[in-house]
């Protein structure tokens, strides 16, 4: 069927015709930018100045030179991204699973609950961002007021000091996307063979044991999917920090993406921004590879 490339009904050009529309988009907006971005990163690139002097690897080396103007804020931003990812991913992997288990049986109103928990994702990050900016405001926010009425401290600086700002950002992200992950888990749960559960019950397994030995293994690929998607989403977090904390306090919640965008568009250093994005990309690719590696190993061990 290969070799000369002829099959029934396929002219040589047919595959290319099928691919063409996509390839036009792909080449213009994916393939070329990857190379172009690299090219930009080797220059001092201000889009509004006619000259863009070549600087070689300077945009990269200055990130690794302690004490340089860019290295401190860059690594601080990377650290912010790392902190956020570290705390949000486990919560967004485990809590939605719990919710999915809660919803995983037929009972009246189930689709209502499912819809309610999913709804914030449909609202969009902008609505959620401004809503929480308002509710979590340390002075006029409803949340602090509620806390004070319940007898707790009513003046926690949820959006203006650490570690509260992190708790706020992680919390609102969980509120926003928990339903999304839960829905994916629900579908995965429904794919697990009922008979496996019955067999386990016959063996006298407790609920917890059933969870560990039937549910979780049955959800393996879904869990990997959720972890990967959530990991990448968290590492690319921008909207929540931009709208709710504005990077405060003192830019400590300014994520890598925020900083790169500021560097490129506000400070007009597109070359430096491009270089930073490549460094971030390397980290993310290593992270994704790590996740796949970690889970693939286990499977072979079985």
């Amino acid at each position, binding site marked *: 069927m290969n070799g000369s490339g002829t099959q029934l009904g396929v002219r040589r050009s047919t595959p290319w015709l099928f691919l063409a529309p996509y390839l036009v988009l792909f080449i213009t907006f994916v393939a070329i930018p990857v190379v172009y971005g690299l090219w930009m990163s080797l220059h001092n690139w201000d889009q509004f100045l006619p000259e863009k002097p070549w600087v070689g690897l300077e945009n990269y080396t200055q990130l690794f030179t302690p004490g340089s103007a860019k290295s401190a804020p860059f690594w601080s931003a990377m650290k912010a991204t790392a902190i956020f990812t570290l705390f949000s991913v486990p919560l967004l992997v485990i809590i939605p699973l719990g919710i999915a288990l*809660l919803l995983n049986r037929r009972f009246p109103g189930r689709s209502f609950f499912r819809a309610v*928990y999913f709804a914030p994702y449909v*609202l969009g990050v902008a609505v959620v*961002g401004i809503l929480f900016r*308002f509710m979590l405001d340390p002075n006029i926010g409803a949340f602090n007021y509620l806390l004070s009425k319940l007898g707790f401290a009513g003046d926690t600086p949820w959006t203006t000091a650490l570690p509260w700002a992190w708790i706020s950002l992680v919390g609102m992200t969980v509120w926003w996307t928990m339903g999304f992950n839960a829905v994916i888990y629900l579908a995965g749960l429904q794919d697990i063979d009922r008979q496996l559960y019955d067999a386990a019950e016959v063996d006298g397994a407790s609920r917890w044991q059933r969870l560990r030995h039937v549910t979780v293994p049955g959800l393996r690929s879904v869990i990997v999917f959720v972890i990967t998607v959530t990991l990448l989403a968290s590492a*690319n977090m921008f909207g929540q920090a931009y709208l709710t904390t504005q990077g405060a306090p003192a830019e400590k919640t300014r994520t890598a993406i925020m900083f790169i965008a500021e560097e490129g568009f506000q400070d007009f250093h597109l070359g430096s921004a491009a270089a930073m994005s490549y460094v*971030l990309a390397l980290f993310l690719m290593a992270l994704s590879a790590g996740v796949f590696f970690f889970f693939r190993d286990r499977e072979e061990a079985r």
Partner: protein
Amino acid sequence: MEAATAGRVPGRRAGRRTSRETLRWIALILLTLLYVAPIVWMLLTAFKTEEESALTPPTLLPTEWSREALDTIFSTSSQTPVIRWFFNSMIAALGNGLLVLLTAAPAAYALARMEFRGKRLVFAGIVATLFVPPIIFLAPNYEIVEALGWLDTLPAVIFPLAASAFGVFFLRQFFIGLPKELEEAAILDGASRFQVFTRIVLPLARPALATLFTLTFLTNWNDFLWPLYVLFNPEHLTLSPGLGLLQGANATNYALLMAGGLVASIPVLIVFTFAQRYIIEGVSRSGIKG
């Protein structure tokens, strides 16, 4: 044997069952409150005056239901045309979704079913970019979009995002999983590849296409960073950067901010109420093939 009748044994077992059921319901209801309360709060604040929205301590219900904030949003000379932003977002997300289907489906089919020289290279190239984080594309795509004259226009938020490799990857997986017999039979009957694709394969692919469309729509709807920098004129903004605009320079009118959020949310929630089954089912299928 014992286990098989577990549900029907009265006494302690059943008692534990009902208390577990009750706990389950309590958890669900508490969670629902957690989800509904902020939306209600947003609604109540939208009807307060600017001063009342910033009071400490906050008032629960507006002392006087004011239409001030909503009037500002809806006024025609408004600097904050939230309705316009809503429509821009809608057009962008729908356009993006359709474009993805139109381009990714045939491409995925070619990669799934056809043999041709360079196929492996093309597929590898496309899949490789799945692992490239989107931030890489920010600066160069900005320049490219500018060169195309698309800055500050809706094509800028429709086309670049449609080039994502996910659609092709996802649909190819699906097409590979389809049984070949139907297609092969049609070819033997003299149908062209194109006819096989449109008459046989696409109808079978409806669930996958729906899933892809839903995911693409939601991703575009939630996109924030890119529209923030490629759109300027308030009339051309989509919801994400637009709502950020409602936060004032030196002082924020929170009633206005919440009113903007409300106006952005209501239509979405209405559509969602009717279409939630399809949307949620679309999303849930995305994780299965992984």
